[in-house]
């Protein structure tokens, strides 16, 4: 069910920011930079439409880039977690 492309691509909607699964290297850098365990990050469900769309699996980290009026770009990260069904 991971990347079942629908006729409407949610990623193109203007309210959906850019999501991306980060690489192993980037992941390590991130955790080192903030000196944290992955579960300290904000979460996103694996059943979230975006997770399903980009095929994110529990344990992976997503990079999210939002447009910001004041900072131009605001980068944040989320840990993919398994939903309780």
């Amino acid at each position: 069910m991971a990347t079942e492309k629908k006729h409407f691509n949610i990623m193109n909607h203007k309210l959906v920011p850019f999501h991306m699964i980060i690489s192993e290297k980037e992941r390590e850098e991130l955790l080192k930079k903030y000196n944290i365990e992955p579960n300290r990050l904000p979460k996103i469900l694996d059943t979230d439409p975006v997770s399903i769309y980009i095929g994110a699996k529990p344990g992976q980290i997503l990079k999210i880039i939002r447009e910001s009026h004041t900072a131009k770009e605001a980068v944040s990260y989320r840990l993919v977690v398994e939903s309780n069904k």
Partner: protein
Amino acid sequence: MERARSVTKKIGKIEFSLLSPNEIRKMSATKVITADTYDDDGFPIAMGLMDPRLGVIEPGLRCKTCGQRVGKDKCPGHFGHIDLAMPVIHVGLIKTIRNCLRSTCRECGHLLLTDKQREEYFKELKRYNQEGRNTTYLLKQVIKDCVKAEKCTRCGREVGKIELDKPTSLRENGKKLTPSEVREWLEKIPDEALPLLDINKKSARPEWMILTVLPVPSVAVRPSVTLQSGERSEDDLTHKLVDVIRINQRLQENRDAGAPQLIVEDLWELLQYHITTYLDNQTSGIPPARHRSGRPLKTLAQRLKGKEGRFRSNLSGKRVNFSARTVISPDPNLSINELGVPIRMAEELTVPVKVTSHNIDWCKQMIKQKYLGSDDHAEYIPGVNYVVRETDGMRRRIKVTEKNAEDVAEKLEIGSSIERQLMNGDIALFNRQPSLHRMSMMAHRVKVVPDKTFRFNLCVCPPYNADFDGDEMNLHLIQGEEAKAEAEILMKVQENILSPRFGGAIIGGIHDHISGCFLLTHKDRKIPLDDASHILAAINYDGKNFKTFTEDGKKYISGKDVFSTLLPKSLNLEYKAKACFNCDTCQAPNCPHNAYVIVKNGVLKQGIIDENGIGAFKGKILDRIIRDHGMDAGREFIDNFTKLAIASITLFGFTTSIDDEDIPDEAKKQIAEGIGKALKKISGLVKAYEAGELESLPGRSLEETLEMEIMKVTGKTRDMAGEIAGSHLGMDNSAVMMAKSGARGSMLNLSQMSGCVGQQAVRGERISRGYQYRTLPHFKRGDLGASAKGFVASCYKSGLSPTEYFFHSMGGREGLVDTAVRTSRSGYMQRRLINALEDVKVENDGTVRHAGGQIIQFIYGEDGIDPTRSMGGNAVDIDRIISDVKEGV
């Protein structure tokens, strides 16, 4: 000063469990069997509710269980117990009981699941626990599956339908289950099944949810009070326990005597009622137990719950010392940082001072000086209330009185401390509720003043949202040096001029400050030299002499020059004043209304100083001075312009009265004609609608179209009346001056007073409710005309007709109700937000995290901008940068 060592231990987990009947008996100091408390001689009855084995509350008496007294060794109090004649259901656990019954078989007590289902659920549960995930959802699913079963897979018993009649009555297939039957059923549930019922088998058994023994809390929990009349008054819990024991006794007697089943059942229900209300007197579905006076009793749950409960009123919030509260009043002569504190308060509030070799002489003087007898009685002399001496760990507090002052001062030793009275210059926190933002509590410098009210500068009203119609405020005196420093740096009024809400000044000129500056700066005002000296004396002006000019042999100074004395020499600024008419084609630098302000090198070249210059929220000059010259300069500017403005307005004189709203008969006639035309137009619209000739607007029904058209006409009518009235009220009119400068009131207020009040609305529509098909009996049924639907053609000055008055009250009432509803709802929302966010802070690495270390944001606000220092929410003020570059700054 001694400091409690911080405990660096982490709470691993907290577990709640049930007390078994055996545990209750084991911890019980005595069985309670008598409903009476004291005998005729006033001694507690043994095995009664005040049995001395339950602990003591009177000082001197010894507890019969632990032998300790109330005082120093302190008897903690001991539980007793009541053996119930028949089991009773615990209200607080009724939902769990129902779930247990629904998911198990009455015959064999096993879960109503197939072996396969059970195994799968156990496996899943184990996995969830290993992963540390929340099991609530999974366990709900277990119950859902159990309810679906029709037959027990073990013994084949048909499953009955379990229903719950609130609050404590259970039925199986419509037949009532007694608590005894429920208990028997729960006893059958095997230990292995408990994890799937969300019960920890190590700490509880389901049948313990049915009470057979009731613990009786110690007397320390429910102390009795002796009134002045010598009468004893018992705690609500004691009253309730008396009821429980009484009914329990009667139930036992009746059952033992073999009374009819009906009577026993009635008493059993009564016992259930009393125990239910003993636990929670606000259980829905049953009437609350009441005191003889009719007041509902405060039983166990009521002690903990809600705003007056233990948590919110004694644990999250506490009463404090070194605080004071009184009515507030204004004092324009104080600085914004200052606070006038009444002498009588100052003499009561103290600050501890440690006596050292450096200050011992000063301390001695402090102790004595109050009683030395000064000539000046108006002057406040701070004294010392207590001297605290510490010798070999023993603390002795000596009260300083007129008699012993000399003596105490002489005996003062280094290492003691004195509790000195409040002095001018002390730092204190000042607060007004509701404390909706951080500016609701700011630090002020104390100035001791006579009389009985707190006094402060009027500019500080907006952050506290205070006025002087009887508002009271609180003062908290700071006791330690660190706290004093912290308050001074972070909380002083001058540090809070800029609001973190929108990045602009929240403290600035209001009302008369704006009117005063307006009078001083509008229309090239010229001020006779001696008057100007008078005004400048208010700010202790000692700068260079003024450019004066002579007219008719008298020397004059321009008002703008007087105001310019407050401006820093480097100030360059151009902006539109509040008085700007928003002309169709703005002639910017050459505004004919003098509404374009230009400040060059700290001199006001042209324009009016009004709300947009110095006002709270909007003041451009104020904002610029704070940004460029800092908080100190900002405070000085505010202090000075308030004094300058007040001096000016007092000198020039400023009055508004009802005749400010007078307009000539000619104008009145014009307005009446306009209203007449509008009424005709509306009746035309109604006629067209009734004849079916009205064309509906796209997407609207015919009725909606009519309403919209009429609202449009009434709106225009009021504007027309306002314009006509406004054109006859010139800038020489005080009310107009206040409205245009932003000091108080608006042109709409004025046009309603002298023109026409306009359409009244409820829920955004013309008034339509009241009688059948009409709003009031004064109108025909089905009348859709203007006056029948809430159009007020009169003005406030001429007065409203009875029907107009009624409609106006309807609109006014809606406003009142709205605000009442809004405040309570937003208050609750704010409470929830604060509770959720109270532990969130910005860490050293710039991330926003809560106390558990979870990251909330990677940079504060996702842009790292402090809104206090932003320009109205923007990180950079581009216009400012461009104009600075142009001028070559």
